[in-house]
């Protein structure tokens, strides 16, 4: 006996197997992202006044990525429709745009990530904050000789071959950004200080705490990285599957076209779901 309903729908449910499978899988994905969204709401509602950051992210880039993802969603359905019309060549072209979109999305996302890792917040000993992009840092070696770095390598670091390692300690950092009196000021984009960007050179002796906007920075950054990271993994997974069906898997179009169309449809359903998650992620993380 072979497994039935792999291609044609079963009479009483009206569905073929993979269709049931993908919707079940998506149901579990809804629970996964639902739990993360619930956590987001909870952390946000629970955050004391002034501690939840706003406008940390790059809105134009986020908007662009939203449009890229929406576009990839329309190409996925159009590609499927082309197959329904028996036009394989057009399917190939349209679906390649989908793949391109997913690539663009990921590249933009990685730029955004990199930006956050270069975005520093310095708490000075006098209680004032400096927030902005770290443009360079100066280190001293044992003989007080200085050495300039493009990034930040911690309060000290060691370098060199084993046995002859040299220790470098931080002398100062340069941050291009603004100065603020409190966290609340930094977190409120409407306060004037945000618009007065300039270079601040801060001596190591002045620094009480320094750190970038990685996930460890605060719970907002934590949930931002977790949600978008998980979403990006879904984009990668979806693109791999769609790419496989589009490329090496396309031989099936000749041998079993109906099943091939089903595959395109099912992978498309997954893709739309990924788009759907982003539709919520974008306003929630970038705008609110």
């Amino acid at each position, binding site marked *: 006996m072979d497994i039935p309903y792999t291609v044609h729908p079963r009479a009483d449910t009206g569905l073929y197997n993979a269709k049931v499978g993908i919707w079940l899988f998506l149901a579990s994905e809804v629970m996964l992202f639902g739990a993360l969204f619930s956590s987001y709401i909870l952390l946000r509602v629970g955050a004391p006044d002034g501690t939840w950051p706003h406008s940390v992210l790059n809105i134009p880039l986020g908007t662009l990525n939203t*449009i890229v993802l929406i576009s990839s969603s329309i190409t996925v359905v159009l590609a499927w429709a082309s197959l329904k019309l028996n036009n394989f060549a057009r399917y190939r072209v349209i679906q390649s745009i989908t793949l391109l979109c997913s690539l663009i999305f990921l590249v933009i996302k990685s730029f955004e990530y990199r930006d956050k890792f270069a975005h520093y917040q310095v708490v000075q000993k006098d209680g004032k904050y400096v927030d902005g992009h770290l443009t360079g840092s100066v280190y001293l070696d044992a003989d007080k000789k200085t050495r300039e770095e493009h990034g930040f390598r911690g309060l000290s670091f060691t370098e060199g071959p084993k046995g002859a390692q040299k220790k470098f300690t931080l002398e100062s950092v340069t941050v291009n950004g603004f100065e603020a009196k409190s966290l609340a000021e930094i977190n409120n984009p409407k306060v004037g200080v945000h618009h007065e960007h300039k270079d601040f050179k801060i001596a190591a002796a002045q620094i009480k705490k320094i750190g970038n906007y990685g996930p460890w920075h605060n719970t907002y950054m934590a949930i931002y990285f977790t949600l978008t990271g998980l979403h990006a993994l879904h984009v990668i997974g979806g693109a791999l599957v769609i790419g496989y069906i589009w490329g090496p898997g396309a031989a099936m179009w000749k041998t079993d076209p109906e099943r091939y169309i089903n595959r395109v449809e099912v992978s498309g359903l997954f893709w739309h779901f990924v788009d759907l998650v982003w539709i919520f992620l974008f306003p929630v993380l970038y705008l609110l």
Partner: protein
Amino acid sequence: MSATTPDEVHKSVRKYLAVFIALIIGTVITVGAYYVHLPSVAMTIAVALLIASVKAFLVAGFFMHLISEKKMIYGILVATVFFVIGLCFLTIWSMHDFPANMNHSVTGQM
């Protein structure tokens, strides 16, 4: 399942394109609303989530063909939505219902 004959497919394609345009417009409005600074925070949140929900409805309804799906799928999704709402609502409720006369703190202020 929608679209089986070529004619129907052509019709659906037009529908998809309309949805696509609606999605782009929705995105533009969302971002626009952010820049014009609505009078209250509550309103900003409401507008953004409302538009997001409409967009989600369009994607799920038309691109994913949910508006003409089989009963079985609806059943699965109704149960799922019920549980997500339960998870979200009950968790948030429990964290904001404190025993009387206890000066408990909310998340993050402990």
